[in-house]
């Protein structure tokens, strides 16, 4: 049974499941580093998915879908930036409200613009092509799994080392971390915390928008209401588990994606969908229990406010 379970098709579906989670989690990681508590990844992701499908359908170009998705993610992210950074509002309250706003507005616009409810599917929606990278894609197994992928997937892969370099090897990254860890000190040195926080939140908007595009134009080619279905929250946990470190976040995202892919496979083997759907969340909870020492900061944050 196990030989049937673990093969390159499973690896392939795990990678595909990982891309949206990883993209959103990398955005969450940047915010975490800048000291902004970001739990609206879910909302930005669903807005991105909607805009990706909308843009791709209207212009019949997946590239425009990606552009629309990033714009939608940024638009939603600005609500948090304004509320939490400029107005110093509670990021938890804002995050929850932003998620509900994003679900509400996409559910509202779906019938208003496209005249359908629930799911929007159309032949004119241009999905993301899987672009094989010459030579690399010829490598057995890995070539198909990693190097025959969508543009958003390649971007996600590249962002892991790129963000590591940015955060730990550039002055800008150092200042960003400084803003998160010692805002007072950063300000004394002439670094404007607000500006860095805005940039971080907008970056998370871009990345969550891309995550939505991968979800709605890459993994499937359609928009379904609430189609992020908890992935944004899983990304929030991935940031915590990965200690807001690029490789840690990658590992955590891969773990959850693997659970999702495994659930999908079990489903094929006859397990009821209700049970397999819960698998990534159960896995996430178990991972939290195993790595529980890491959440003291979030716990302090969440028990002090609201």
């Amino acid at each position, binding site marked *: 049974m196990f030989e049937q379970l673990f093969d390159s098709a499973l690896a392939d579906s795990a990678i595909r499941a990982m891309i949206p989670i990883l993209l959103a989690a990398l955005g969450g990681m940047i915010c975490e580093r800048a000291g902004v508590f970001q739990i609206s990844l879910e909302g930005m992701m669903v807005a991105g998915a909607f805009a990706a499908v909308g843009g791709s359908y209207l212009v019949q170009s997946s590239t425009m879908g990606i552009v629309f998705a990033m714009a939608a993610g940024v638009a939603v992210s600005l609500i948090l930036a304004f509320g939490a950074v400029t107005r110093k509002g509670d990021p*938890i309250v804002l995050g*929850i*409200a932003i998620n509900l706003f994003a679900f509400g*507005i996409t559910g509202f616009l779906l019938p208003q613009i496209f005249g359908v409810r629930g799911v929007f599917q159309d032949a004119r929606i241009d999905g993301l092509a899987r672009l094989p990278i010459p030579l690399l894609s010829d490598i057995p197994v890995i070539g198909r799994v990693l190097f025959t992928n969508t543009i958003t997937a390649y971007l996600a892969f590249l962002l892991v080392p790129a963000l590591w370099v940015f955060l730990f090897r550039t002055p800008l990254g150092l200042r960003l971390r400084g803003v998160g860890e010692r805002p007072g000190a950063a300000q004394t040195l002439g670094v404007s915390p607000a500006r860095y926080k805005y940039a971080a939140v907008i970056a998370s908007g871009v990345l969550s928008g891309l995550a939505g595009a991968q979800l709605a134009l890459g993994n499937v080619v359609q928009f379904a209401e609430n189609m992020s279905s908890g992935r944004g929250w899983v990304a929030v946990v991935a940031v915590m588990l990965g200690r807001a470190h690029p490789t840690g976040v990658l590992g955590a995202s891969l773990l959850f994606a693997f659970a999702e892919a495994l659930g999908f496979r079990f489903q094929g083997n006859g397990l009821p969908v209700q049970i397999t759907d819960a698998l990534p969340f159960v896995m996430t909870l178990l991972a*939290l229990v195993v790595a529980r020492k890491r959440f003291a900061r*979030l716990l302090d944050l969440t*028990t002090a406010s609201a």
Partner: protein
Amino acid sequence: MSGRRSVGGYVRAVRTSPVTFSLVLAFAVGATIVAVTGQDPFLAYREMFAGAVDGSGLRNTLARSIPIVGMALAVSVAFRAGVINLGGEGQMVVGGLAGTVVAIYTPGPGAVVIPLAMIAGAAAGAAWALLPAYGQTRLRLPILITSLLLNYVGRAITGYLVRFPLADVSVTLATTRQVPETARMPKMPVFGGVSLSIVLVVAVVAGLAIVYSRSVVGYETRMAGYSGRFARYGGVPVERQTIGVMLVAGAIGGAIGTHLIIGESLRFIDGELVLSGLAWTGLLVSLLAANRPVFILLAGLLFSGLQIGGLAMQRNADVSWRLAQVLQALVIIAVASRLTLRRLRRREVEQAEVAEVILEPAHVGEI
């Protein structure tokens, strides 16, 4: 304090309240969104308002306010104690199924079965809420995350149960059998039939209002909400309190879930309780009312009216009822962005405290 206010004082308080401002702002943004999508916002709002009160509108608004106010009360219990329970949905669903099972499979007269079903629902909801509560007190896992993730797990488990062991095989839906006539929550002959559960909800509002303002527990939970460290210093058993408020929140959620089946749908259909987003509406209501029970009642009626009116708007003005959800979220975003000056000051104080701890290792604050 509000007892001595004059009528003019009330008018001024409402007019200058940030909540009023936020409501106006949300409706203005909502109107813009409707106009941009090519519809008439004034027609939409007129239909929305009429739909919430005209004909059967008032009855439906009252009926929908039961779960909204109920879930808001559940949220308020936890939030004002500083416990961020986002698991209302899961607690409602798990409790709802437990209550439904008791209602379907327990023989006996309604006077026995109905209360029993509500108690079973409350117990199951409380038990489900205990998981994230222990997670926080024993394992130091933030309730914010665990309670939310458990929503998906609770939905999966109940979905599995109604599809297989508890399924009504005579229909194609994944659902339980229908609740027998004797076990249904009776309707009162007011406004054309409102569920008896509304009495329970009003009783909980009154009960919580008294507990919050007059009792030691109410005071201690509020202190813990302001500052866990301060409360602990004052001798409040914060961990036990976290368990306590989660039990109460889960119990209310479970009872509301049961009401939604034995008083409304009569079948537990997979995903139906989640689809309506009632738990999340309740959460927004509690935030808008700043966790105060009487204001929750008012805000709950308002949001319920928005949703019921929204359905009429969808029928008559061809504008999706989801506008109601957008408006609700916008109100909270506006309130959260505006009620900031006080929060800011408190955070600065906290940061100053943290700075002291760093400078002085043997700080008194380390309790």
